């Protein structure tokens, strides 16, 4: 078989409606913004190996590049040297590249076809904007790279954060990327069990756009509806996965529409009509309006997700909780995981452990780090 080119062919080689997978997810945040090593995260993920099949895992790390805090950090994956040459040329022509380097990898840990990973710390040249917002400019360039069919894919593009992901078990990916050498105040992680793809590096989670990232467990039965809604708004769903839907919906609702996190949670997993009907008028009005307007973004079907951005980590499940999510706290450290055992294995002595209800967001914010751009209202946990 000829190796398919482009995101669609790589991630969804059999051309199914979409990629289907199940997973383990984990998130850990120090609410005082103190930097943590990734060891615990990897250990917790390894504890949940049961839930994955070695065909993908990944990590998002926040507070990762303090030296380049003000630059967009582009993590880009290349099929080969030719793609690298093209991608570097493109980025050079679109951005002011402050620094770039190959992301160090120990290939002895990973499966054969590991791509080339490069990172670029870039500024946006204001002259290039032509009225577009700076963030929109970055998003558009990322889409251009991902849809170029040149064998180049942007893995993450936020400031002072980055995503490391690929095909392999959580431990293998951690070792491949030398994760023990990185520190961050917020980590999310994902282990994957895909059923209709042999696994592709770009298809592993987290999915990230600017500084927002998502790890996701589940399958959304409303995929067709969600996708059409996003397409109506002008988004392209190139990866053909549920996770991409979350990532794009978050970009739209959080970043572009400036909606508060709790409102977004109510869009993804709204209360039932009968509960909305029983609410006090103002709240009823709000929730009814949200469901009417954003019914196309109701994520219907089993899911649990952890989404993160600077200063914020949110866990959410579908409204009837068909996928697991556990929350826990130990002093300033906030945990979210698919399984309690994963949390206990890195922190046996917890102050609090709880099972959030279906559709109820668990929001962890960070005292020291202002939640980035435009979050109007954040419910404290």
């Amino acid at each position, binding site marked *: 078989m000829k190796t398919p080119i482009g995101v669609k062919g790589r991630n969804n080689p059999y*051309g199914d*409606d*979409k990629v*289907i997978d*199940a997973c383990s997810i984990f998130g850990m945040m120090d609410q005082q913004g103190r930097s943590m090593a990734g060891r615990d995260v990897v250990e917790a993920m390894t504890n949940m190996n049961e839930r994955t099949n070695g065909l993908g895992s990944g990590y998002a790390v926040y507070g990762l590049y303090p030296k380049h805090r003000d630059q967009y950090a582009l993590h880009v994956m290349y099929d080969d040297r030719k793609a690298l040459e093209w991608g570097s040329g493109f980025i050079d022509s679109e951005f002011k590249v402050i620094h770039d380097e190959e992301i160090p990898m120990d290939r002895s840990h990973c499966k054969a076809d590991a791509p080339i990973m490069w990172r670029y710390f870039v500024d946006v040249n204001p002259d290039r904007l032509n009225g577009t917002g700076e963030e929109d400019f970055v998003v558009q360039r990322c889409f251009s790279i991902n849809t170029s069919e040149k064998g180049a894919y942007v893995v993450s593009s936020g400031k002072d954060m980055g995503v490391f992901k690929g095909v392999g078990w959580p431990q293998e990916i951690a070792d491949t990327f030398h994760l023990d050498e990185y520190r961050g105040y917020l980590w999310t992680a994902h282990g994957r069990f895909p*059923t209709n793809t042999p696994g592709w590096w770009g298809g592993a989670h987290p999915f990230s756009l600017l500084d927002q990232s998502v790890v996701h467990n*589940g*399958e959304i*039965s*409303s*995929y*067709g*509806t*969600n996708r*059409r809604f996003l*397409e*109506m*708004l*002008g988004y392209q769903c190139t990866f053909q996965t549920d996770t991409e839907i979350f990532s794009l919906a978050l970009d739209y609702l959080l970043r572009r*529409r400036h*909606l*508060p996190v709790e*409102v977004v949670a109510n869009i993804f997993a709204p209360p*039932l*009509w*009968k509960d909305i009907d029983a609410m006090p008028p*103002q*709240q009823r*009005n*709000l929730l*009814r*309006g*949200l*469901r*009417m*307007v*954003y*019914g*196309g973004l*109701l994520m*219907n*079907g*089993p899911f649990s997700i952890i989404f993160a951005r600077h200063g914020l980590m949110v866990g959410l499940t579908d*409204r*009837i909780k*068909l996928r697991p999510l556990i929350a826990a706290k130990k002093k300033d450290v906030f945990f979210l995981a698919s399984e309690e055992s994963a949390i206990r294995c890195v922190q046996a002595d917890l102050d609090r452990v709880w099972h959030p209800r279906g559709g109820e967001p668990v929001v962890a914010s960070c005292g020291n780090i202002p939640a980035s751009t435009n979050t*109007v*209202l954040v419910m404290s946990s």
Partner: protein
Amino acid sequence: MKSHLLPDYKVTIDRETCTVCRGCVIQCTFNVYSFNKEKNRIDIDANKCVDCQRCITFCPENSITVAPTPIQYKQNASWDRENIRNIVKQAEAGGILLTGMGCDKPDFTFFDRLLLNASQVTNPSIDPIREPMELRTYLGSKPSLVNLTSTGESWTDISLASPQLQVETPIIFSAMSFGSVNLNVQEALARTAVSSGTYFNVGEGGLNPRLNKYADHLVLQVASGRFGVHKKYLDAGAAIEIKIGQGAKPGIGGHLPGEKVTEEVSATRMIPKGTDAISPAPHHDIYSIEDLSQLISVIKEATDYSKPVIVKIAAVHNSAAIASGIVRAGADIIAIDGMRGSTGAAPQVIRDNVGIPIEMAIASVDSRLNQEGIRNRVSLIAGGGIRSSSDVVKAIALGADACYIATAALIAMGCTVCQKCYTGKCPWGITTMDPVISRRLNPDIAAKRVENLIRAWSLEIKEMLGGMGINSVESLRGNRHQLRGVGLTERELEILGIRMVGS
């Protein structure tokens, strides 16, 4: 002139069991039966039979059989029975052939070639008996931006500019006017609309005072005849529908013969008794899209922007472009009526040859509005050929917000789709204004039967949604991934936006 027309049906009475109670003589409104005093038996004139099954249903001894006649013309695939009969009828009468109900041709139904999905392993199906399952839908224009006014730390308010129709199940009764059906039928539908949390469209015949108490669940029509339209009328209902066209007869106006314009019809329609009620083919104030836009604005102004305006069009070749124009003209809801949609009376040649099936129309309209980024500005109602709960589910998966039904509701009341509505002699008391025959339709019983139908379909829709792993109908809308096609060409699949079974 001796008629050359052969009967369509063979009617037999089992003389052994018949008690000559004469029930069939009374039941048959087409005078098939007569009592023969001399022989003390029932005589049969099968030429008049329309196969409505009324007599069979009510014969206390089960003595009657109505079957297609064994008498056939010489077999000929081209000159088939229908073609020959139509010519014979026209040779004898010299007029346009009328018919009732929707197109009965086999080749225009795509619903039967669509199959639904169900969850297995990777996502769980949902049991509607144990888990909540939501069918509520709001119809109307949705803004692309919501205004959240933050009040410090507390909840925020949201304002929707456009009025919405709240339906508890995505099934609405489409237009059946007073005149085409009688008040008993209208009242039964109005009551069901109230009890089932949906709406009944009273059609273009004006609003009879007997329906006033159901007004919150009525859609009122403004059609080309403008019958019964005045300020109070516009204020009365929950929504107003501008009727541009109808699936059964696109491009054709309506004609209610003077005989059907009784005292009551005349009062409701605001026309003299006994005069023909003519609905012209086009609205004489709408010759282009900007004229429609003006009429929408006028109605909105007149009703203080308090209720959604629906524009109903027949599904025709360029529906997608027309629908896009209607959105931009300011409609809140577009109702699209497919070519299999029914009517009280239409020229047969129009009914069977003009328009396109609803499946294709709804798919292409939804896709176009989506591509143009304006799908949220309008809700879509699909009608014309919805026969079952699975048709509803498929229509919504193709892109509709809700469905219009009419024939199905009439069948629930008794209609057997004999297609003779235009004669005014409906043996089931539905499409007749005859005060005596109308009494056959008891509004209490009819309402109960239709209510049962809506309940049954709603339950079935919930089962199908649950099977797909979806617990709210808004997650089905335009979810074409839940559909696969069988026996369709590549191009048909492409227009429907679905894949082949097995792929």
